[in-house]
């Protein structure tokens, strides 16, 4: 074990500059990114990586990159993957950073061990394994960052798409947009009930114009929301039912047990009537600037 470590170590020591230049050239060629503005940054990253690799090779085992000795290099790769994931690089563009080190490293190995075929084969194999592990680690970090981004976006979507609007004193509107799944129903229900308590509303208009399809599951979620609102003392009116959805509801034999109106305007008119209010035409139309 100590033998090949020293070989790699001496290689990096002896040909540091050449390795760096070749590696950068390979990165540029393989990734197809030739942005002069990034050159300095890439060079800095590569230099740091080589330094850490050298330090790691002095002490750590090659077959276990999870060892604490490899911590600095793992941090470096994690940072790199996160940056590239957030900047929209593809997985292969990210992994090229590590994998492109193989070519210059192997070339050097071949030159150094030209007369010793057996050592060359062993060295090539262990080095290749190390680089592969580091590359896989890079990809894993990249995927983790992407998953975090997706999870955050999902959360934001959930929060964005469940507003409860006060239309009038005692009248709330809940415009639903997108498909109703269990998680969203829970959030919708909670925010609606909280608003009913806060505003003392007696009527809630649930508008499903933005719900693409109503199947039995969505209908059940709607019924749940309506029942919960009723338990809080608020009546629900369902509005925004498109002709297609009306047909679906009947074909599926769904029983919603709720007053429904075709448009939000009709629902608001009914809600106002129930609360004893009315909207009437003015005798003299108001001036536009008034």
């Amino acid at each position: 074990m100590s033998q090949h470590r020293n070989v790699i170590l001496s290689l990096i020591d002896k040909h540091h500059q050449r390795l760096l230049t070749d590696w950068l050239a390979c990165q540029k060629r393989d990734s197809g990114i030739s942005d002069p503005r990034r050159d300095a940054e890439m060079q800095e990253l590569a230099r740091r990586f080589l330094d850490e690799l050298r330090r790691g090779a002095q002490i750590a085992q090659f077959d276990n990159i999870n060892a604490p000795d490899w911590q600095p290099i793992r941090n470096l790769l994690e940072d790199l993957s996160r940056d590239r994931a957030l900047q929209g690089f593809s997985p292969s563009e990210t992994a090229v950073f590590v994998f492109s080190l193989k070519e210059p490293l192997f070339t050097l190995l071949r030159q150094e061990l030209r007369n010793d075929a057996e050592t060359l084969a062993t060295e090539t194999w262990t080095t290749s394994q190390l680089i592969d592990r580091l590359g896989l680690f890079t990809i894993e970090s990249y995927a983790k960052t992407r998953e975090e981004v997706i999870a955050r976006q999902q959360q934001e979507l959930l929060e964005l798409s469940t507003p409860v609007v006060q239309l009038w004193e005692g009248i709330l509107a809940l415009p639903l947009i997108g498909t109703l799944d269990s998680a969203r129903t829970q959030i919708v229900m909670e925010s609606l009930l909280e608003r009913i308590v806060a505003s003392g509303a007696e009527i809630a208009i649930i508008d499903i114009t933005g719900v693409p399809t109503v199947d039995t599951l969505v209908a059940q979620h709607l019924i749940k929301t309506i029942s919960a609102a009723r338990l809080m003392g608020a009546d629900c009116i369902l509005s925004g039912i498109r002709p297609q959805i009306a047909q679906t509801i009947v074909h599926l034999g769904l029983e919603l047990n709720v007053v429904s109106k075709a448009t939000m305007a009709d629902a608001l008119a009914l809600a106002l009537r129930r609360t004893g209010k009315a909207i009437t035409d003015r005798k003299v139309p108001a001036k536009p600037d008034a």
Partner: protein
Amino acid sequence: MAEIPILKIGDCLLVSIQVDMHDRLAMALQDDLTERIVADRARGVMIDISALEIVDSFIGRMLNNIAAMSHVLDAVTVVVGMRPAVAITLVELGLGLTGVRTALNVDKGLALIRRIIDNPESDDAARLG
């Protein structure tokens, strides 16, 4: 054993449940309440559950029973002050309390009872739109 007080407001009875309900307490409440409805000739019953953080199927059934009994005695039952978390739990349990009327708080509950007593037909008409 603690007893649940029944307060009289005009021709309404107000029951405020502040303690955890168990079988015997629920039975005693049903006895007391039906007797008071008859004795006071009450037209409305308001059950305030704003202090309850947990409502299980047992209490749900009790509320339904009280509503049905009051109905037989020609009194309207309104459950008031349910918490959002309780409402969600009941719905998830499949207990919609369909036989019971509900209101957000005691104030609105009284108004609802008044509306129904004064105008028994129009309320149902309004609900159907």
